[in-house]
């Protein structure tokens, strides 16, 4: 298996003395869809900034597809595409121009750059806006523009720093589909996001960074298995005055026709339903309401918080 990104003992101390990274190690395989999560100020953007040469490291080493970013920056950079958190294009330049310029910085000749710009702008629903100045685009369009820009040189490793921040649900889903297709076609993707549902839905592996240190680094499935409870919303056929006490789970009344059910992950749900039936509770429907990754994330970065409401 080829290694896309190898980070070893990465340290960063800012000029004001703030220690942003305390020696992190990270390993991302080629073809992975990798989530890098952490609370604000944990060190995610610093890590991405160092990998993409926007921030100087204090210590440690980084290699991208076998090229050390310090000793062999040009080769390493050729493989990286970045969709940053903040808008980072000249707002007064036309959309197509931004893409053609970016491609040129990577050595893609103008004619080919134009062809690729058309391809990506069409894929991301921006072709009609190609002659517009970037400042006239909506927030969601600007995010997609940065995505198209990052792909012009066909990077093997695409890094997205909160790519769906501030975009509506429709566009978010479009971006998810686009990224999934891109990953299927062989592009390694590293994603940071505050929408943990997004990470859970898209990513196969995950690392959680907190206070400049990696506190979890594993496949998404293994991480989620550490979660102890599941919660469901139950919609009742008939109104219920008070939620009964169950032996196998906790039940809480939300309103007269809605209950919240929290179970241990080892609980036999058949037993729970039998108990509900015994209390003459008839269900209309139910929905799993656990945002599993979110609960786990909160538990890991704020250990004092109890994820079980009981």
């Amino acid at each position: 298996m080829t290694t896309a990104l190898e980070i070893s003992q990465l340290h960063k101390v800012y000029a004001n003395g703030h220690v942003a990274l305390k020696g992190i190690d990270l390993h991302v395989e080629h073809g992975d869809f990798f989530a890098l999560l952490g609370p604000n100020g944990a060190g995610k953007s610093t890590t991405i900034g160092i990998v993409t040469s926007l921030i100087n490291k204090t210590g440690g080493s980084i290699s991208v597809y076998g090229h050390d970013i310090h000793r062999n920056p040009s080769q390493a950079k050729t493989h990286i595409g970045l969709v940053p958190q903040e808008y980072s294009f000249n707002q007064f330049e036309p959309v197509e121009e931004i893409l053609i310029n970016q491609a040129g910085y990577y050595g893609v000749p103008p004619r080919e750059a134009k062809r690729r710009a058309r391809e990506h702008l069409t894929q991301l629903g921006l072709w009609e806006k190609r002659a517009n100045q970037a400042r006239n685009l909506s927030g969601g369009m600007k995010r997609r523009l940065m995505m198209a820009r990052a792909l012009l040189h066909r990077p093997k490793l695409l890094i997205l720093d909160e790519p769906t921040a501030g975009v509506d649900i429709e566009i978010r889903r479009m971006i998810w589909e686009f990224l999934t297709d891109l990953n299927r076609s062989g592009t390694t993707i590293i994603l940071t996001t505050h929408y943990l549902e997004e990470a859970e839905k898209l990513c196969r592996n995950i690392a959680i960074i907190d206070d400049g240190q990696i506190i979890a680094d594993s496949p998404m499935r293994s991480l989620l298995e550490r979660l102890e409870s599941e919660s469901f919303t139950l919609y009742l056929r008939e109104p219920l005055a008070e939620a009964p006490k169950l032996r196998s789970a906790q039940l809480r009344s939300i309103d007269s026709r809605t209950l919240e059910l929290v179970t241990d992950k080892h609980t036999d749900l058949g037993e729970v339903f039998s108990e509900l039936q015994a209390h003459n509770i008839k269900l209309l429907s139910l929905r799993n309401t656990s945002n599993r990754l979110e609960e786990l994330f909160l538990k890991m970065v704020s250990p004092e918080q109890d994820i079980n409401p009981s």
Partner: protein
Amino acid sequence: MNLRYATVALYTLTRREVLRFARIWIQTMLPPAVTTVLYFVIFGKLIGSQIGPIDGHSYIEYIIPGLILMSVITNAYANVVASFYSSKFHGNIEEMLISPMPAYIILAGFIIGGVLRGLLVGGVVFGVSLFFGHLPYPDIGLTLLMLLMTAALFSMAGLINGVYAKSFDGISIIPTFVLTPLTYLGGIFYSLEMLPDFWRGVSLLNPIFYMINVFREGALGSSDIGAGLAIGITALFLAAFTAVCLYLLDRGVGIRT
């Protein structure tokens, strides 16, 4: 880093720079032409008619080379400082920093942009000057050499200013308080012989004085100092500024955290 890559990257950056100042030509190309017409009319025609010939040339002919070079200096400088700082301001400097472009290509792109704008505006001023006087240009090679060296030097000075600027004020302080006085006191409007000893000594400390004089020698055939010395001094400044610019870009001063 192969030649094909370097060519495409440099072409892209140069094209971007040219399109930038061409898109806003009303701000970049037109004002120098208007200002220079005023200089020619007021200093050349109205006041100059009261001043006798200098080195055998009418006053208006004497000031034409200096005014052309002044427009080249201010525009080359302004182009790079504005472009570099606005790239920092908008964040699109990141586009270059994350790309494989080495510092020398980024520097070359900005410098070529600054030189081209300087030369274009210099050309506009030269065109305007034809309505006021015709210079003999006895050494066109020397004129062009000094034009290119000066434009490149002040493009680099603009880049250094852009690197350290932290606000739009920061890009106007140096032009206002350093560049303009140096240019005006660089011998555009007078010959060294017209100055008292003290100011003659001060003028000799001003690098722009040497550039204007060499340019004037190529355009008029007369100068206050030798061309060889002036070219040497300008070349030394060019080498030093190139080294400083490459160091700043390579280390990411003012652009990397």
